[in-house]
């Protein structure tokens, strides 16, 4: 432990002048500027662009972390995420897709973080709520709806905007319906029940093509409507010449960005509210929390419902963006994927969940495919790599390793929650005190190990 603190202080000594004071302004502005320039001058899809893109994303975290004036952070954020990245996206659509995916999963990770991180309830079926939102829009915006009642036709695409609220409410309702019976259970039972529920939703989606064809079974729902872009004429008048697909990419990017921002604000406000502290109390010591008068089940239910509602909204967006959904999109692996994001970043930590979402999405979409092509080149030169081995096909292995290694070596995550880190530090000190005192000869401390 002492080594980590000394290296941390060295790290702090290097980064301190860069994160506060006048040098920080210059450094951050320069960092963002250089990354932007590099991105915009080299928009091809290749390894160097990947690296710059990751650095660019990291710059946002550096800005967030630094102690500069809020207006400066906002300006940098707007310039980087609101202008540079979308413009870069028009040059290379692959990266804006990565950014949009990262945004969608950021919201999901933030939502799951409320459940797992804040309230300490392990939910292994989180993707079920995402599926509910996605299938709701998928069914209502296509002719599937006519199968339920022939008098109903697909809703107007413009209804997408109110449907975001519908997705939120559906997620909320599903969360409450699942939560009400199971939240009295102990944590590890809850994990299994939610896992079972996630499977149930997937199996239902897979089999609800009979007796009435609602979900179209394993074929999935095609031709899901995209909403009309409200400001399309304005954009065209600005002289932007772009076809529909490009415009929709930008549209979904901005939409996701807005939802992510709203989510971050809501989650951060919740965390520091009375409710957030109640969650934390339940997570740390349920009995003590109840003794303090915290309504245990109601608070857990609230965490469950809030987490689920974020997933419901994003489900609607996801269905509309992908145009196509099918049951395997919402399998257990996806839930675990989101859980890995939360754990990698640090349970209970908002920037951690965002960092985790960005890292895992990039791992999925950029790093593993890149690794695969590197391996294939190595194969061509005769390196002893099995022909069948394709890293993109072994996500489970990577996520499994990630979960186990994180739990063993850094259970608090890459970017731990401040308060949690302080608590852990406190524990370390008291442990050291005990060691120094040598009061115990061999008590329960020895039996465990």
């Amino acid at each position, binding site marked *: 432990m002492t080594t980590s603190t000394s290296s941390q202080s060295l790290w702090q000594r290097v980064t301190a002048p860069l994160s506060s004071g006048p040098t920080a302004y210059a450094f951050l502005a320069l960092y963002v500027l250089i990354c932007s320039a590099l991105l915009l001058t080299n928009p091809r899809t290749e390894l160097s662009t990947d690296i710059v893109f990751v650095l660019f994303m990291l710059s946002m975290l550096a800005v967030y972390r630094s102690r500069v004036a809020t207006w400066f952070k906002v300006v940098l954020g707007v310039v980087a995420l609101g202008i540079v990245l979308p413009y870069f996206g028009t040059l290379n659509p692959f990266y804006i897709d990565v950014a949009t995916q990262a945004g969608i999963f950021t919201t999901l990770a933030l939502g799951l973080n409320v459940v797992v991180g804040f309230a300490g309830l392990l939910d292994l079926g989180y993707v079920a709520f995402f599926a509910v939102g996605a299938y709701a829009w998928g069914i209502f915006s296509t002719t599937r709806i006519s199968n339920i009642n022939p008098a109903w036709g697909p809703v107007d695409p413009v209804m997408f905007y109110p449907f975001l609220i519908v997705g939120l409410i559906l997620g909320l309702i599903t969360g409450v319906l699942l939560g009400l019976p199971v939240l009295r259970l102990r944590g590890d039972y809850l994990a*299994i*029940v939610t896992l079972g529920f996630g499977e149930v939703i997937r199996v239902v989606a897979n089999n609800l093509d009979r007796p009435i064809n609602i979900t179209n079974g394993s074929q999935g729902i095609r031709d899901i409507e995209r909403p009309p872009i409200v400001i399309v004429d304005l954009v065209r008048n600005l002289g932007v010449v772009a076809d529909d697909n490009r415009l929709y990419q930008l549209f979904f990017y901005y939409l996701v960005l807005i939802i992510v921002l709203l989510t971050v604000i809501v989650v951060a406000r919740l965390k520091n509210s009375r409710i957030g502290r109640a969650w934390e109390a339940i997570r740390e010591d349920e*009995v003590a929390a109840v003794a303090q008068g915290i309504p245990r089940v109601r608070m857990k239910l609230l965490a469950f419902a809030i987490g689920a509602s974020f997933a419901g909204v994003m489900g609607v967006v996801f269905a509309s963006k992908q145009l196509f959904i099918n049951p395997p999109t919402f399998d257990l692996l996806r839930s675990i994927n989101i859980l890995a994001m939360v754990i990698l970043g640090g349970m209970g930590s908002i920037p951690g969940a965002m960092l985790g979402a960005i890292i895992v999405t990039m791992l999925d979409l950029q790093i593993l495919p890149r690794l695969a092509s590197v391996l294939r080149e190595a194969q061509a030169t005769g390196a002893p790599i099995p022909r069948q081995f394709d890293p993109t096909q072994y996500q489970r292995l990577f996520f499994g390793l*990630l979960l*186990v290694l994180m*739990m063993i070596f850094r259970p608090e995550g890459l970017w731990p929650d401040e308060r949690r880190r302080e608590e852990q530090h406190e524990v370390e000190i008291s442990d050291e005190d005990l060691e120094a005192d040598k009061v115990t000869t061999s008590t329960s401390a020895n*039996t*465990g*190990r």
Partner: protein
Amino acid sequence: MAVDTTVAPTPARQSIGELLGVVFGPVGQLLAFIVGSATSLALIVILLALALSPSQPDIMQRVVIILPQVIIDGLVRGFLFATIALGYTMVYGVLEFINFAHGEVFMIGGVVGATVSFLLVSAGAMESVPPLVFVLLVVLIAMAFCGTLAVTVERIAYRPLRNAPRLVPLISAIGMSLILQDLARLVMTNSPLGFNARYQTPNFGQPIQLFTMQVDERSVPVVLSPRDLIFIVAATLMLIALNYIVNATKLGKAIRATAQDMPTASLMGIDVNRIIALTFLIGGALGGAAGALFGLRIGTVNPYMGLIPGLKAFTAAVLGGIGNITGAMVGGVVLGFLEAFVAAYLSIFTGGNFSGAAYADIAAFSILILLLIFRPSGLLGEATTQKV
């Protein structure tokens, strides 16, 4: 220090009668539950058919014809869940921790069995091996391999986390389960086995005709395939052996003591780490044997086949009362019957609108959810207060 009441100070030597009682008492209980759940489910189905028979005259016949076969199917499923559930419940009893990777141990058991069978086939020795020797060979190798695997997993991924908060080892176990799935896939796809490995067996002979049933002047033969018979016999033998180990040996007493109170057990001179490792060894061996037998019965194995049986076996363990060994067997059998009946009769009673096979999984998980709401301690479990 108060002496535990359940780990009673038994005399050093037990009389034969006591021994038989300890070993076969749980088996008798299991038998009672088998008969009870099979008859009550059959009654429910027949009553439903009676209720529907005015509108569908032939429904009674359709229901009765398949009934014996459904009961056999339920028995096989039940023994499958029971053997896997034992691994969950033993580990839970000792560590209060859901060993999520146990379903994968079961899968690996199947893969090991398929490998043995592949080796025999490629050596050209499959035909010359007597069927019984083949079964023994496959099961023993799978038990040895999977027992070792379970102990290794415990050593790597769970032991360092033993004093951590509850969620930490659970997440580690989920990670371990994913790792095992993909490692198995990596090995299988890069070997002659392939993703869907064939599991060849010697010729077990013709199905055994138990009796013929007269339904409306038609005689329907009721058959038991030799593979099902092997499964049922092997599972029963393993359950009896486990009961002997846990209830009648010193090792079993140590396991029960560790489950009841780990610090005290350690003060009484029990090497707790060794007992935990042995618990994983026994649970893993049972899971591996179940996998090898299951693969033998269905003929192919794949690296993702462990998840759903694992989940259902966990459901069975909860159904019987988690931590309770007899409970795991009873829960497994009850769940197996329920599932077999849903799978067979759902589509008959809904006029083919809902496919029973697809919704059987939902039935299992709905039972889990309902059970946890109304009787979280399970069928045989005692109401326990939550340890905080």
